[in-house]
């Protein structure tokens, strides 16, 4: 009877009787990258990439809630040009010596059915935090072929103005507007 009471209390506490259990996903560094795109002399698009140093996402799809924490190591910027990477690490751009990490922390998730549609959070670069919205271009889940675990992820895009973070070297020849393109895949823990 005691046990039954406990179960009843638990069932009462859950909204709509749904088993709303947040699921934790750890980002897979082989399929999680932050790419950036910026216009060069109004002519062509410069691209670069950051790997994800650490990424955790908690999804409660039944309740329509989520939480994300993504950390990137700014010194590991990769454009394919070592000299350009070194320039990007300087104090007037990524300032990697004084601010080795950039972070994205988000707790505002919107869903379209059970798919994540947008994530709004705070992006911190060079110690400056600004709101950034990432919109899903696609979102889905598939079973991981080796781990036999669920993998959820997708492609997201967003934009920021680098001057807002104090990274304004080279403007206006290299644009202020930076497009972010994220590949993320999280493995269910």
């Amino acid at each position: 009877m005691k046990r039954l009471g406990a179960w009843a209390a638990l069932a009462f506490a859950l909204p709509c009787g749904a088993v709303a259990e947040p699921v934790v996903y750890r980002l897979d560094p082989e399929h999680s990258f932050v790419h950036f795109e910026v216009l060069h002399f109004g002519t062509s698009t410069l691209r670069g990439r950051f790997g994800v140093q650490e990424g955790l996402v908690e999804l409660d799809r039944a309740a329509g809630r989520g939480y994300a924490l993504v950390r990137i190591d700014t010194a590991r910027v990769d454009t394919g040009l070592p000299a350009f990477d070194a320039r990007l690490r300087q104090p007037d751009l990524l300032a990697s010596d004084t601010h080795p990490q950039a972070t994205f922390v988000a707790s505002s998730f919107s869903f379209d059915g059970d798919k994540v549609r947008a994530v709004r959070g705070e992006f911190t670069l060079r110690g400056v935090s600004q709101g950034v919205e990432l919109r899903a271009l696609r979102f889905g889940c598939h079973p991981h072929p080796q781990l036999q675990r669920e993998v959820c992820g997708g492609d997201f895009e967003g934009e920021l103005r680098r001057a807002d973070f104090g990274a304004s070297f080279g403007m206006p020849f290299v644009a202020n507007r930076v497009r972010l393109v994220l590949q993320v895949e999280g493995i269910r823990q």
Partner: protein
Amino acid sequence: MHKLLAASALSLAAVLPAQASTYTIDPTHTFVTYEISHFGTSTNRGRFDRKEGTVQFDRAARTGKVEISFDLTAINTGVAPLDKHLQSADFFDTAKHPSARFVGDRFVFNGDKVAEVGGTLTMLGKSAPVTLKATQFNCYLNPLVKREVCGGDFETTVKRSQWGMTWGLNMGVQDEVRLLIQVEAIKQ
């Protein structure tokens, strides 16, 4: 009188069709990025970091020719074991075919801007036609090199099986690969 002649010669030079000029690909602003779907969930990307080439370009006559080759051993996805797999016989087979080459001579213009470049892409010893569509194109005077630079962004979607690259097709790895091309070339 001489001054007048000189001035008119100068203005003539400005309006007469220029001859084809040679441009050298700027390897620091020229990259091919590929995109391929990963289990329909997210998009895997990779980049080719070593390349060289030239462009013959005549905006007045609206003609051009581009020749560019990519060192496939410099493929870079950010995942070292994947780079290794991509260089194996399953994909690019770089031991036998270390480079890919694109020769494009069908330039389509929209006004004085390049809108499309059609040509042939050779990889794995096979050649197939490819048309690159410009999403933007521009020429500008670069203050650092003090020369005209022309370039833009191009894209196309190819089926890798056209070059015999069929690994994983039966496991759901996509045939379609989108290529995003940044290119800038400096007038010589």
